């Protein structure tokens, strides 16, 4: 154990680390809200849409679920500008790491959320939809006022779990040098020669955040157990 710990650079770099945490929170918030919205649409398309739309949705979800998130991020970061340039005809258009990261997470997470939401809709008994239809509702009305509210209540724990996974996944923006929490800490650690302390600190912070999320899921599940019992 020849290592001398010096934790002081963490306190000195606190404002910069907070900025990084802000970026992480921003990525999580945007990817979660747009991801859940798009995921719901994808799930509805897959369950109730016409055959071609269901197949399209299934293909989209399977594609993004079978490639690494890092590959998705690199796809968007390196290739989206090329596509956009040829679409808009502006040869100087750039996208930048923030938009690239947000788009990549939205694309991939909507596929992950779709699978959860599809299972959630499937967990609502089919009689509920039939009852709605027999009351004279359209399919869409029955879906949004009868099936979806029950489905979302059932899948809240899974959605929170996926959001915890998303929080962990945001650290992957390291590959495009975006300064999220991990990126910021890495840069400070390299500058001060205190990589060891920084990465230990980062690991503990992520552990604390995820543990809070896991505890929330446990509470929700216990509440549901006691309600049904």
């Amino acid at each position, binding site marked *: 154990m020849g290592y001398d710990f010096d934790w002081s650079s963490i306190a000195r770099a606190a404002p910069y680390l907070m900025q990084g945490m802000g970026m992480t929170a921003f990525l999580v918030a945007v990817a979660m809200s747009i991801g859940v919205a798009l995921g719901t649409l994808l799930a509805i398309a897959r369950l109730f849409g016409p055959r071609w739309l269901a197949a399209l949705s299934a293909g989209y979800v399977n594609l993004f679920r079978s*490639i690494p998130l890092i590959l998705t991020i690199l*796809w968007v970061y390196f290739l989206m500008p090329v596509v956009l340039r*040829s679409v808009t005809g502006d040869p100087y258009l750039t996208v930048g790491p923030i938009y690239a990261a947000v788009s990549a997470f939205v694309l991939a997470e909507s596929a992950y959320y779709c699978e959860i939401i599809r299972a959630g809709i499937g967990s609502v008994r089919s009689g509920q939809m039939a009852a709605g239809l027999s009351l004279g509702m359209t399919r869409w009305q029955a879906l949004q006022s009868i099936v979806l509210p029950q489905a979302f209540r059932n899948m809240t724990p899974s959605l929170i779990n996926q959001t915890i996974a998303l929080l962990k996944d945001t650290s*992957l923006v390291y590959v495009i040098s975006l300064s999220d929490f991990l990126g910021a800490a890495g840069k400070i650690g390299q500058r001060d020669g205190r990589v060891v302390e920084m990465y230990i600190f980062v*690991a503990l912070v*992520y552990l604390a955040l995820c543990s809070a999320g896991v505890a929330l899921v446990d509470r929700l599940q216990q509440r549901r157990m006691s309600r049904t019992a």
Partner: protein
Amino acid sequence: MQYSWDWLVFFKPSVTGEGLYGWMLLRGLAWTVSVSLVSWFLALGIGLVVGVLRTVPRRSMRMPAAVFVHCFRNTPLLVQLFLWYFVVPELLPVAWGDAIKQMNPTTNQFLTVLACLTLYTGAKAAEQVRSGIESVPASQRQAALALGLGTLDSYRSVILPQALRIVIPPLTSDFLNVFKNSAVALTIGLMELTGQTRQLSEFSAHPFEAFIASTLIYMAVTYCVIRTMRLIEHRSRVPGLLGAA
């Protein structure tokens, strides 16, 4: 903005002088597959042991297993990789740390990624094994104890044969995740498939071909894994038991 497609780029000699461009992708695939498969099998062992420990009656054995699983499941994989690569060699005795740093870089990266992926995946697999064991009705355990089997024997011949069959389908997604997670290796310089894709796209100036090819390769890997797991599930099925599911 004109993009000139050239799918034959994979058969052109690479600017690095290491053969054809296509070989870069295949070398990357070889790293991805080897690191993923080895860590998957090691992770299954860890998952089995830790998953069982989480369900045994003795609290002093359950606690450490629970802490292990909690810590490794609740930190980002990339952070864990950096801990193994940048932090652990500094904290070991100096001679060991130096030995690690003086290793052949590729060997060092490979072993680091292997350790990291193994423990991360092992913690996930342990959760699946635990929930599989918990889904075996408690009466099975009681019946085994009533027959005079000890804890070890009741696990070996009553609980685990049922639990492990139950966990095969959920383990499929963990198996798929190992291949995807192995892409983090590029951050410490191990040139697996995603890393090679990026290099290929820069060297050859044909980024679309490179990225499309590796996307297709990953999809093919996914397909193979799903088929393999279905086959195992089918082979290990006990007729009449869990058969309908």
